[in-house]
């Protein structure tokens, strides 16, 4: 009953609720004073009236749920079959407004766009989801990390599936980002006014590779350990910031204060490196990448939507030229 009241928010329903509580209170009082027979009868009558009103309201709600205040507060707009109303329906919904209200017919030419950007985003969402689930079982510390991987593989229900989804999804995302970039390059979609978005896209490629690289160490197996050993040893040769790079030693760089040390949290790939890779992989880079994705998608819209072939006009749409 209170739920229905909440749905409708009708003024009548509020006194009904207070009456309901008052009825039991009044009963107690009446028993105590021995002199409220009439009062009790009146309260019972009003309670019954409230009940019948509530039943009425429930019936109305079931019959036309779209007329309740709850429905209206969540969904707001009734969508008529007019372009304006449909556009409003899209714009007034936080999830739908991420899509354009209207798109060019040619923007869905999959043999042109390959749909590769959207699919990459889908794979990213999948990776965030499976990765979050993996975090429930993974401890980023030496010895335990690899044990957790074995645990996930053999003892956790669907653990092997999740781990493999995450691993293959990561490979797939790198491949798809590159294919997306390849398509954008081939179709010249990096040209004016999309130059800025191309640069954002290149940064997203780098972030994808960094996500891939930091995730490599996390199983703490031989493959990942040596891959990260090799990868971070390259950072020794960073100009200015690496202790074996050009001008590095002159700037006072040693194995204990250069950029490689900053990445590893030590001079060797050890527990600090595992923890740093974990935090970069699970928190920092996903946040940075998500922020760039927001900008990337927003710019696609602002730069005129997904790039496609030259707009085409159907024969049936060609208007006759008026004769003068």
């Amino acid at each position, binding site marked *: 009953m209170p739920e229905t009241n909440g749905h409708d928010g009708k003024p009548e329903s509020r006194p009904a609720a207070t009456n309901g509580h008052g009825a039991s209170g009044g009963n107690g009082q009446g028993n105590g004073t021995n002199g409220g027979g009439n009062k009790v009868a009146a309260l019972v009558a009003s309670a019954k009236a409230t009940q019948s009103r509530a039943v009425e309201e429930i019936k109305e709600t079931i019959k036309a749920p779209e007329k309740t205040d709850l429905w209206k507060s969540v969904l707001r707009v009734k969508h008529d079959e007019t372009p304006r109303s449909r556009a409003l329906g899209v714009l007034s919904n936080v999830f739908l407004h991420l899509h354009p209200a209207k798109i060019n017919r040619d923007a869905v030419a999959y043999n042109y766009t390959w749909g590769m950007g959207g699919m990459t985003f889908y794979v990213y969402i999948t990776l965030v989801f499976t990765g979050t689930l993996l975090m429930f079982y993974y401890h980023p510390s030496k010895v335990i990390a690899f044990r957790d991987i074995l645990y996930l593989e053999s003892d956790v229900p669907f653990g092997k599936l999740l781990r493999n989804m995450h691993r293959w999804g990561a490979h797939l995302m790198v491949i798809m980002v590159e294919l997306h970039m390849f398509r954008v390059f081939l179709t010249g979609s990096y040209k004016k006014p999309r130059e800025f978005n191309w640069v954002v896209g290149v940064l997203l490629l780098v972030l994808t590779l960094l996500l891939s690289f930091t995730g490599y160490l996390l199983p703490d197996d031989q493959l990942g350990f*040596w891959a990260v*050993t*090799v990868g971070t*040893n*390259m950072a020794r040769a960073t100009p200015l910031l690496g202790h074996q790079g050009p001008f590095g030693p002159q700037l006072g760089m040693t194995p*204990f*204060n250069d950029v490689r*040390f*900053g990445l590893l*949290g*030590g*001079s*060797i790939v*050890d527990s600090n490196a595992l923890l740093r890779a974990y935090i970069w992989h699970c928190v920092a880079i996903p946040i940075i990448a998500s922020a760039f994705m927001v900008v990337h998608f927003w710019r696609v819209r602002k730069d005129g939507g997904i790039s496609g072939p030259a707009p085409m006009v159907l024969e049936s749409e060609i208007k006759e030229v008026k004769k003068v």
Partner: protein
Amino acid sequence: MAAVLGTLGMNLLMFLRFFFPRALYEPKTRFKIGYPSDFGFGVDTKFQNQFRIWVVRNTEGIFVISAICTHLGCTPDWKPSENKFKCPCHGSGYDPEGINFEGPAPRPMDRAHVEVDPDGQIVVDLSKLYSWPKGERSQFGDLDPGGKGGAILHV
């Protein structure tokens, strides 16, 4: 404006400094490996897992190779049948004295400082390394001024 920028800049510096701790808990770089008489001719790999070194004795004496490939830092494998070190990462090959002869390695593997302590044991110090960069002088024969230790023990 300047105050805001100054504060933000200071915060950035503090953020960066945060990633460089003042103390580390890493394995010791100075340790004892036993007596010179424990080591026969050739390559001894018994300390590879514990200290990441090989102890080598040749006609000149005993020296300790740091088991780090000079290409990108993997640990090469000692292959007794082929009488060489072979790196599994990118295929660098080294002879039994750690001198590179194949693969991408730019120079021989580094050697650690060795000396004999008063009770006769060999003390290895991995924080003092001797190298032989390409086209430069070899440090592999260097000895401390006092003559107690150095890149090689003439025993």
